[in-house]
Structures are given as C-alpha cells and as structure tokens.
C-alpha cells in the first residue's frame, strides 16, 4: 500500500492544501489592503502552479526538459503580457 503513495506526491498535495488555506486568509482578515491581498494571491497561485508542474506533472524528468521549459515559459510570458497589457490599457487607465 505504501508504495502507492510516493512522498513527493503526498507532500505536493499537503502543499497545495496549505497554499489554498493561505490564499483564503485574504477574505478571512477584514481590512487587509488590496495590494497585500493581491500579492498573497499572486504568490500562492504561482506556487500552486509550480507544485503541479514539478511534483505532479514531472516537467523536469526527461532529456527534452529544456524544450519543455522554453515552451511553457514562452506561453506564460505571452499570457502575462496579454493579461497585464489588458490591465494597463483598459483597467488601470494608462
């Protein structure tokens, strides 16, 4: 039975639960500044994504890992430019 529950997966799961609880603090403590709340959410969400990518999806396990990193990082950069470009132009009013 024990061999079915490898350590890194169990730790990853515990980590993702803890990160979810950490994200929930932004609505549990009233009067937290918006900036602090968004910072906490950005950090916990990014950490959750890394837990999935590294511990569960094993992105670094093969010899073509460099190509995988480039592919995913490129997609994330394009995504971030899209999201923050939209925020700059249409929400924050620059």
């Amino acid at each position, binding site marked *: 039975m024990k*061999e*079915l*529950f*490898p350590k890194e*997966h169990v730790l*990853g*799961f515990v980590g*993702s*639960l803890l990160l*979810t609880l950490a*994200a*929930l603090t*932004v*609505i549990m403590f009233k009067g937290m500044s*918006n900036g602090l*709340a*968004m910072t906490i*959410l950005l950090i*916990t*969400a990014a950490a*959750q*994504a890394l837990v*999935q*990518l590294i*511990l*569960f*999806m094993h*992105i670094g396990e*093969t*010899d*073509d890992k460099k*190509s*995988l990193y480039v*592919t*995913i990082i*490129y*997609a*994330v950069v*394009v*995504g*971030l430019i*899209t*999201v923050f*470009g*939209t*925020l700059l132009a*249409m*929400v924050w009013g620059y």
Partner: protein
Amino acid sequence: MSKENTSAPLEYRTHENEMKIFGFWVFLGAEIVLFATLFSVYFALADRTGTGPTGKEIFEMPPVLIETFVLLTSSFLIGLGVHAMRIGRKKAMMVFYIITLLLGLVFLGVEINEFLTYIHDGATITTSAFMSALMTLLGTHGAHVTFGFLWGSAILIQIKRHGLNAKTANKAFIFSLYWHFLDVVWIFIFSFVYLKGVL
C-alpha cells in the same frame, strides 16, 4: 532518450510516444494563452455590471471551496494513478483514475448548480458584460473538465480491454497532464475570480 530505452517509463518507450508527450506540452502552452485571453477579458469587464449583480453579490464561497478541494484532490489522485502505472500496478492505477473522474463529475455538478443559481437569480450570460465574461471563462474551463471526463473514461475502457502497453500508458500519461493543467487553471479562477471578487 533512445528508441529502445527499457529503463524509461512505459509511456516514453517509443520515439512516437516521446513526440506525443512533447506535442501535448506544446498544446498546453497554447491552452495557457487561451485562458490568459479569457482572464484578460474578464478583468477588463469585471466592473461592467450594468443593471445586473456584481461578483460580490452572487459569488458564494462554500460551493467554490468544495470545487477547489475536489479538483485539488483529483489532481493528486491522478498523479498517484500515473505512479501506480509506472510500478506496474494496473488495478490500483485504474482505481485512482476512476476516483479522479468521479471527482471531476462532482466538480461539474457543483458548477452546473452554481450556473443554475445565477440564472435563477436573473443573472444570465446576456445580463451584463461582467456576466458574459464570467460565464465564458467558467464555461470554457467547465467544458474542458467535461471533455476530460469523456476522454479519461475512453482511456480507462481501452486499458481494461488491452491492458497497460506503450500505447495505452502513453494515452493515460498525456491525460494526466491535461487533468493537472485544468487544476492549475482552476486555482487561478479560484484566486482571481472568486477570492478577488469577494474582497
């Protein structure tokens, strides 16, 4: 990895299999950008509620928390499924995959109920720009989960029929990447739609 690398996990053992896994990562890159555009639209329109409700008025945290913990658990279980597959435990692998898919159904049930509640409260996809953007984003994710349920079920049937071989193991592994990815997208929806919405 070479063509006949028997030390590699089953799903990587042929060159074609390696290429399929690599190709799926490229697809996930495109999916990241797809969801980035939908998040952009949502952020741009989140305050354009017109005469309709705001996010703060309609978001209910208990069902959202259920959805979050259900998806996190299913993502953990499919990871265990892949691990079981790699140590040759076909039966355990299938059990993990079946529970994963059942949790996917629970997630969909809660989400459909959430949509019905919105519609019942008079907030439909045509009510406001906010509702359109919200339902497009949630709906696209939900459609991915629905497709994943059907895809995963088909793979389970194949494994039941043909056993674990390089082909079926490859399909099951690629499906696990897809499922983990949907969990990542959900984490961002949970953080930047719901939690941000009720701040």
